[in-house]
């Protein structure tokens, strides 16, 4: 019904969504081969092509080890691909930049800085004076609902709070694309749900482009405009599925929506059919 599978071969450079928007990220025939300690080459990504439109929320779903993180790191400029190119707004990505903001599963907050210090870090690096940077940081801390915790150190926060700080720290320097690698993977179900709702609310406000890696089919369908399904050995794109659900999305409504349920069932069935034994759960 709403599911429109597209062959990976057709993807390169082709705008995929309904809205004819500019691609902000273009991944063009990217492969990544790692030299492992056993001296055997390991292909983590094989000939990946994908374009992401500006303002889209795109989730990457796939079994463990299929190269989702690697793909995100390539877009982040933290890792350079063995072959192929990744482009941001038409320019080849050669390294990290403030236009692409990562949020990691492990939070990666600076333990020697307070919440305020962490969130102020980016604005200060951009040459903002400390008064302005602080004002900006306070604004973002409020946005993620942590007002009152400015002086706390990361070790004094719960996992969910740490991830909120990490999100605020990244948003503070105003990236155009958010690169989120299983950001809610380490959280309990309840916290995870709340953070999904909050993320969606924040996203619906300014519609930043988001590349979101997850293991959860429900999370991917709930959040995304588009779900990219990857498969393992070697890491390839299996399907790209447009999620045609109305926005703003509300969980209570979606849970009762047969289209939402359909997407989840369809995607889970595809994983069952695939050669990958491991379910993305």
């Amino acid at each position: 019904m709403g599911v429109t599978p597209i062959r990976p071969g057709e993807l390169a450079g082709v705008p995929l969504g309904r809205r004819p928007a500019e691609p902000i990220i273009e991944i063009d025939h990217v492969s990544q081969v790692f030299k492992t300690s056993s001296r055997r080459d390991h292909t983590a990504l094989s000939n990946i092509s994908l374009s992401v439109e500006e303002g889209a929320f795109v989730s990457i779903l796939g079994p463990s080890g299929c190269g989702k993180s690697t793909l995100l790191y390539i877009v982040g400029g933290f890792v350079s691909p063995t072959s192929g190119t990744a482009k941001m707004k038409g320019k080849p990505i050669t390294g990290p930049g403030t236009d692409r903001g990562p949020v990691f599963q492990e939070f990666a907050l600076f333990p020697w800085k307070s919440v305020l210090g962490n969130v102020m870090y980016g604005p200060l690096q951009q040459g903002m004076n400390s008064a302005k940077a602080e004002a900006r940081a306070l604004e973002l801390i409020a946005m993620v609902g942590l007002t009152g915790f400015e002086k706390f150190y990361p070790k004094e926060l719960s996992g969910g709070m740490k991830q909120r700080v990490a999100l605020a720290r990244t948003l503070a320097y105003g990236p155009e694309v958010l690169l989120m690698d299983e950001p809610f993977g380490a959280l309990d179900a309840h916290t995870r749900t709340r953070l999904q709702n909050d993320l969606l609310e924040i996203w619906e406000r300014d519609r930043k482009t988001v590349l979101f890696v997850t293991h959860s089919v429900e999370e991917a369908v709930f959040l995304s405009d588009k779900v990219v399904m990857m498969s393992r050995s070697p890491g390839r794109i299996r399907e790209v599925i447009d999620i045609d659900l109305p926005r703003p999305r509300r969980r209570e409504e979606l849970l009762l929506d047969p289209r939402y349920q359909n997407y989840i069932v369809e995607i889970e069935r595809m994983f069952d059919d695939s050669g990958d034994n491991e379910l993305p759960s």
Partner: protein
Amino acid sequence: MITTRTTNEWLLGAAPIVLVLLLWQGLVSFGYAPATLLPPPVQVFLRMGQQLASATFQQDIAATLFRLFAGFAIAVVLGVSIGIAAAVSPPVNAVVRPIVRVLAPLPKVALYPAFLLLLGFNHESKIMLVAADALFPILLSTYYGATIVEQKLIWSALAAGTPPRDVLWKVVLPAAMPSILTGCRIGLVISCIVVFLAEMITSTDGLGHVLVTAARTFQAVDMFVPLITISLLGLILNGLLQGLRAYLLRGFPSV
């Protein structure tokens, strides 16, 4: 609750020291050791009180402290900078690694005669020996701390707009701080030992020299005074370093 716990810890920590003093007193009181060789603790502490008020003894303490601080400071500066450089730069690592492997296990005191010939009998040779001995624990723990810095901290900083050349100061150094301070703590204890040792071997002043002079003239009481003084100095310095550590690492888990 927290206060009672720390008080308890204090008591637990003080107990063995009190026990040693009691044992000491016991050995003297029950005649196991003649008072001329092992003076009773009370006598030693009284003598120490007198000595602390005397100008010459104060000068000896000052000389020892100066050498200790100078040597330790050199070790910290060199150890931290070489350790960090070796961790982030493969060429530096290639050069430093074999040198450290050869020099670290070497008993530095064996180099002391050479230092004396090179630098003379004054402060310099002793400072050099202290620095040489305290350097390696600081260097090695700095190196270790800098190599295990989480990659994603560095990535986060780079993505936030940190110039790559600043990552060293803004991420690697603060992230390695717990290991660096652990190295400093070991280095400080070694500095206390080595400065005393150097002064015992060849010196005209300092606490180690006071001990040797007293020993040569069989003045047992005067022998114990510098010994206890250096222990107390070590205790105070360690306490100060702990305070600094607690402040610098206030954000890190479990300090």
